[in-house]
């Protein structure tokens, strides 16, 4: 940190000419307007949802807070919804709307208190952009929680996150739905409880929901490197075991504040033979199940989400998470 009360003059050189970024070279081709086949997202979708604030952005899409003008007209004091759209680049894929619909269809089949509730799927006629409307969640995402608590959290607070998160995942798997992108920013501690969200890379297991468009991982590969299992990085199809690896990484990080493999991808970590150290607050049996979930090799990962859940459930006390976070608890 610099501290300055009396700045020195002559700090400024005349006529410095910088360009902002390496990928913004001022060539004539670069500066031509882009010719997108995709129209920009309007401020109001379908004449009803007024986009107010960007809540999140990813490689594929963006989520906004929107005001539902119809609900507002009828005097709803909380007329807010979240809107998920595909990014403009991704929306250029010819089957982009079908993939967003697939996310909608998968998630709406999961009725669980700890899985995000979707309202609807629609296409804005004017811009031809598809979008999902979903419940507006206010609270802390786990990535924010980790930034605020870099040392990790005590057993009770950890358990109060782990149990609903694993319940949600075990339920999704029991319904034949795989998440495909579990990471801290896809879990929120909302005012009325935890929600797992963003099934954008989700898939039904083979044979479930026939006829639904499937995201072909041969043609389209996406992941979050630090939470993707080794077999996914090697091109294997998504399985429930890959979700178990990802959620185990998230739980370890919540316990210690540190990613189990020093923020390396599974490939890098295996090459370096990194062994995660047991978090101090975990009992031996609980650490054993979590360690199994963190195995690089899929055949060694002999545990499912229900097994992890059992490992975290073996000590059950009253909930302290809300008190610990200072969150308002709903009745």
């Amino acid at each position, binding site marked *: *940190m*610099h*501290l*300055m*009360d009396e*700045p*020195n*003059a002559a*700090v*400024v*050189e*005349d*006529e*410095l*000419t*910088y*360009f*902002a*970024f*390496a*990928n*913004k070279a*001022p060539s004539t081709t670069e*500066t031509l*307007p*882009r010719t*997108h086949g995709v129209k920009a997202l309007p401020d109001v979708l379908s004449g009803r949802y007024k986009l107010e*604030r*960007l809540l*999140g*952005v*990813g*490689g*594929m899409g*963006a989520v906004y807070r929107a005001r539902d003008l119809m609900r507002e007209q009828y005097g709803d004091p909380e007329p807010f919804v979240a809107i998920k759209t595909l*990014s*403009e*680049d*991704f929306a250029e894929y010819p089957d982009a709307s079908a993939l967003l619909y697939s996310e909608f269809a998968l998630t709406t089949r999961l009725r669980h208190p700890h899985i995000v509730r979707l309202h609807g799927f629609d296409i804005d006629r004017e811009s031809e952009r598809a979008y999902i409307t979903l419940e507006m969640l206010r609270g802390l995402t786990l*990535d*924010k929680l*980790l*930034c*605020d608590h870099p040392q990790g959290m005590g057993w009770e607070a950890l358990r109060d996150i782990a149990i609903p998160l694993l319940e949600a995942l075990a339920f999704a798997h029991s319904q034949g739905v795989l998440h495909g*992108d579990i*990471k*801290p*920013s896809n879990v929120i501690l909302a005012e009325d409880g935890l929600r797992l969200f963003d099934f*954008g*890379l989700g898939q039904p297991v083979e044979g479930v929901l026939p006829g639904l468009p499937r995201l072909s991982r041969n043609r*389209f*590969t*996406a*992941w*979050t*490197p*630090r939470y993707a299992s080794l077999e996914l990085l090697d091109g294997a199809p998504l399985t429930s075991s890959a979700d178990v690896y990802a959620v185990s990484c998230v739980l370890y990080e919540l316990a210690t504040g540190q990613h189990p493999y020093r*923020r390396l991808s599974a490939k890098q970590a295996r090459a370096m033979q990194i062994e995660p150290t047991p978090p101090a607050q975990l009992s031996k049996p609980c650490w054993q199940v979590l360690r199994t979930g963190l195995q690089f090799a899929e055949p060694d990962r002999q545990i499912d989400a229900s097994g992890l859940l059992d490992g975290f459930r073996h000590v059950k006390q009253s909930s302290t998470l809300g008190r610990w976070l200072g969150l308002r608890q709903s009745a």
Partner: protein
Amino acid sequence: MLWRSAARTDAGKVRARNEDAFLDSPEQGLWAVADGMGGHSQGDLASRLIIESLAELPIGAGFDERLQQLRQCLHWLNRRLNQELTVIADQADTIIGSTVVALLCDDKRAACVWAGDSRCYLWRSGRLYQLTKDHSVQQRMIDEEKLTPEQAARHPAAHALTQAIGANEKLALDILEFSLMPGDSMLLCSDGLYKGISQNAIGAALSLPSAQIALERLFDTALLGPARDNLTAIVIRRQE
């Protein structure tokens, strides 16, 4: 209110998209400019996410606590845009990021926090001070290899950034704290503005009688040039 401020952004004459964003919040004593970069069309989302997140920072606390919250928010955004980003394997350029320069003020103190090459200037007693030091390869070569700005500018990567929100796993923010004096004016701006206008012209604009008039002068001058990049500026003036 203690502050008068005026802000404006413009896509410039060439770019179809404006990836700059700003926060002009005199009631919070908080202002910020963000200049987004993205693989394709995501740069505007990165700068918008930063600005809209800063806009929701709580107001009530004291200066030190607010500065801490501001820094924490930027570190979280860095994590969100870097480690938490879903990567599409075929798209090598999936960096989504943005510069940021933010100014937090109370009645006596100010702190400027930045990452990247968006700048903060101070106009005090008829002199112009550049408070921020760019996080760019050019600036690093000036500092470490003692090159002149002209020599450093010839490096092929001179304009590349060494820090930005979302660019690296670890974010190193720079922070400069200073005491405010009566008559101080501050300017936050993206590179599209300062590269299109001389330092003397910036000083001349900031000496004008109001923030709004100063801002108009800055844009009038910058838009006389080629204005290839997006340009954004906020002029902040303490009430007498």
